[in-house]
């Protein structure tokens, strides 16, 4: 199991298009993906769960990945958030 902490820096937060990109990236891996923030935990492969988190810019989130490709999965999601989902 890998746990990383990352801050959402893109302007629109983890909503709509970024949420969709996140879920699709997460779903490309076999590992289980969980996002935790604001005392809530969401399945990182469920669009509704991710959008319901209401994650705004500057929120720190914890991403937990667990499975055979947890390392690659964790890295890919971290890179995606750090690259601001290509927003700017």
């Amino acid at each position, binding site marked *: 199991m890998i746990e990383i902490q990352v801050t959402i820096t893109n302007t629109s937060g983890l909503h*709509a*298009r970024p949420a*969709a*990109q996140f*879920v*699709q990236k997460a*779903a490309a891996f076999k590992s289980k993906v969980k996002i935790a923030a604001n005392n809530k935990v969401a399945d990182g*492969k*469920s*669009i*509704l769960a991710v*959008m*319901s988190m*209401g994650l705004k810019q500057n929120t720190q989130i914890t991403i937990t990945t667990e499975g055979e490709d947890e390392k690659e999965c964790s890295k890919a999601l971290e890179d995606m958030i750090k690259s601001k989902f290509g927003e700017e």
Partner: protein
Amino acid sequence: MVGVVIVSHSQKVAEGIREMALQMSAPEQKIIAAGGMADGGIGTDAFRVSEAIVSADTGDGVAIMVDLGSAVLSTETAFEFLDEELRSKVQIADAPILEGAISAVVEASLGSNLAAVVATAEGARTLNKC
């Protein structure tokens, strides 16, 4: 990949939702707008809907998002125009049309089956905005 059809009384609404949904989906995701009447007027046209369903299907079925009232009736009529095989794998989602369509295309882009796509679209009903 499950296809998604957007049925609205307004051609502009259907096309606008399609445009937004395309931003969120995989490049090969089928999203077809079936809005308005053939002459561009407000209404729903069962024939247009059935054509949209046929073009949205890639073999895995089609989830249909509807706006109000007769959009449901026209879609049900459209089902009668389909061949039996396709008719067995189409489903109307009881969901808000925009949020449902967005959620449905993301789920469909993951390669989920029709039941999962419809369930996700319907789950969008409880999505809190603030």
